[in-house]
């Protein structure tokens, strides 16, 4: 089954309109492979039929699976740990200094199967600072959120978890490791499309946003939209972490870049 160039372009434009993710020509083969699996799963005869199906999808179900197909969801606990060190050593103390109730709201904006928000929850628990964290975790794919809610992880996901933490916060369920309820409790999952202003308007007064390795999927225009939406969700003075290989250059000036131990964090001005 071949994905014709014309159909590829239509699928690409459809995906871009719906979620701002831009699939370059060089990644056509990837789309062919991944959407091919959806075509098969839906007993369809061609990519053209799939395009009709996606366009007519009333529920978010098929769209969610389509977005899932065009993004990379493989991640792991303690990914880019230097950023978490800065969160714990610099950002959290700065926030709770002005907050007697010690409540803190953190948003993992593209949480995939949950490793990032659970890492944050685990680290805040380890810090033993009497914090009252609220951790929002969102993703465009309902399917990966369903996996995240289960909080059951294979060995790849937990490869960087220190053994002491592994013993303390995970339960060995034979085939996989299950996170204990105390770490799961502060994490709330939401299905959010980062270019959807309306949905993001419901997320307000966030202290810290993690939006790592996400902007790479967007073109300039969509990047500006996403970053603007994140800006609006932050409290004044709130912090934004993006991937260490990403930058907000020519995307926005609304954040002040701060550097801690070679880690760049963006603060809402």
């Amino acid at each position, binding site marked *: 089954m071949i994905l014709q160039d014309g159909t590829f372009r239509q699928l690409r434009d459809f995906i871009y309109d719906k979620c701002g993710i831009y699939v370059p020509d060089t990644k056509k083969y990837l789309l062919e492979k991944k959407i091919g699996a959806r075509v098969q799963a839906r007993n369809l*005869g061609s990519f053209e039929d799939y395009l009709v199906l996606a366009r007519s999808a009333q529920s978010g179900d098929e769209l969610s699976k389509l977005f899932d197909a065009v993004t990379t969801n493989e991640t792991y606990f303690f990914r880019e740990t230097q950023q978490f060190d800065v969160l714990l050593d610099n950002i959290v103390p700065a926030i709770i200094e002005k907050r007697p109730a010690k409540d803190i709201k953190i948003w993992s904006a593209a949480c995939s199967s949950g490793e990032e928000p659970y890492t944050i929850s685990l680290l805040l628990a380890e810090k033993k600072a009497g914090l009252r964290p609220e951790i929002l975790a969102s993703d465009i794919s309902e399917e990966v959120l369903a996996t995240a809610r289960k909080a059951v992880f294979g060995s790849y996901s937990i490869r960087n978890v220190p053994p002491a933490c592994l013993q303390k916060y995970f339960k060995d369920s034979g085939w996989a490791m299950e996170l204990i309820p105390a770490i799961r409790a502060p994490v709330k999952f939401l299905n959010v499309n980062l270019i959807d202003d309306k949905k993001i308007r419901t997320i307000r007064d966030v202290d810290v946003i993690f939006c790592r390795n996400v902007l790479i999927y967007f073109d300039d225009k969509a990047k500006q939209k996403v970053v603007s939406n994140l800006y609006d969700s932050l409290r004044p003075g709130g912090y934004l972490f993006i991937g260490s290989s990403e930058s907000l250059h020519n995307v926005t000036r609304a954040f002040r870049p701060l550097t801690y131990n070679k880690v760049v964090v963006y603060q809402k001005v």
Partner: protein
Amino acid sequence: MSEADTWERSLEELNDTDPAVRRWAAEALGEGDARALYPLIKALKDPNTGVQDAARRSLIAIGGEVTAYMTLPLLREDAYLRNTSRIILKQIGSPATPLLRPLLKDKDDDIRIFALDLISEIRECGFPEDIAGLAARDPNANARAAAVRALSRLGRAEYWPALRDALHDEEWVCIAALEALADVGDHDAIPAIAELLASPSDMLRYAAIEALGKLGSASASDALLDNVAKATPLERAAIVKSLVQIGVTPEMGEAYDVLMEILREGDWEEKLVAMRGLCSLRDERAIPAILDVAGSLDPSEPDSEDLITAAMEGLTQFGCSPALVDAAASLEVKHFGKVIAIDVLAALGCREAMPVLVGLMDGDLREVRRASARALGEIDGEGATQQLRDAIDDRDGHVRRAAVMALGRLRDANAFGSLFEHLGCERYRDVYEETVKALLAIDECELCRHLAEMGPVAREVIGRFGRDETTLLDLSRDEDRGVRLAALAGLGKIPTGPAVARLIATLADEDPEVRRTAIIALGALGQGLDAVRPLLEDPDIWVRMSAATVLGLGGGGGEGGDEWDDNDPWR
């Protein structure tokens, strides 16, 4: 509230003391028209950067020639406004370019350069002759260089001679011309570029070597090789890199060391060139270093994929090398580097690697066990079936899946019992499905004898991938809808009278999804199409669409036919 009221309120709120309110107002004005332009341009100078950002995005959203016209004067303001103006004009794109034309005659050098840079970025304009004129005659060298760049981005071959003429300009413009000619791929420029290899300027000689490398042709490599003897060490290193880019194996004495240095110190683009060069040299000493670099990539990063693929393609050139086998087992190589080595050995069908792969199946690293299992299946390693059978019980689902798939591929009859037993305890659906597929590949008849003991997931997989006509006909009447659909799809691979008859009978089913699946199956067989024709009037749009597609293809041999073959991993 009326539209006029909303408009008035947004304008008022742009002056609010609260920056959040001003930002919302600036956002809201982006949904308006040209009347919002002046207030928004004013808001670009707001003391709050969040408001500035919103104003910029709104101006882009309004877009068009009028916005471009109103934004142009900002090019003469401070660095921030100038940059903002450039971002807005770039995003407005082609409607902005006619307005840039007068700026090409501006007295201010910077304005002419900004206009040329914008044209470069927009890659479109209706007055290339003006730009060619600037490339030849502008009094400012930076403007001439910018004009050269802009000309190359317009992609108009009739202006390439103008780019070649710029090779005779002063150094800075000449370098821009070299880059431009390499970008457009002007092979006619190679003799002129080759002459620059004798230039007294170090920078020009170096830039000419790089340009010849990017142009990549026999005459370019000949020119480079002719200059090896008189080149400086730095230039010789650049020549090595350029020859690799052209696809010529650099057989100079220092090539290995130069490429290793680039592999260690270069950026990712250079590392890629170095990898290609080292692989073309087939010097096995480079294998651990290549695996080290490729193994340091994070495969979950989308950008890593191309690099990993390039490394694997390069390593394939070494063939089934003992050094590659050793690297797969080496403790010195990063675990993802090992995975790459194993995948390459698998692609090469390297039977000599089997003892090492068998040993790796007992290791601690999941990715390595998984890759080894996959490789053993691909290498057709019958001597490794015991290890693969053991791996059916691996603690990691991915390893179990790889082992099960390998056993299916090897059609290991001795594994049938273990695999069947495994169905009773496997908790991951994808592994479960692969187990059923493996059992089908090993002994379909034996598996079908146990049909009554199996749940709907197994029956669905058998329906989709099985080949036994009787079983599929039975499953097409299964109580589970998913099983029925899969079996009907499966019948699309069996061109027998009973299969076609069953599919035709199903065209009258009350479930539209069942009717649709039967249509696609008949289309794949290229039979019973007359029975499909009445379904062009079906009440369900999807059924009608499938019927139209199938009849339009004329059935059989079309896309649907290919699909069924793709579904079967082992046949």
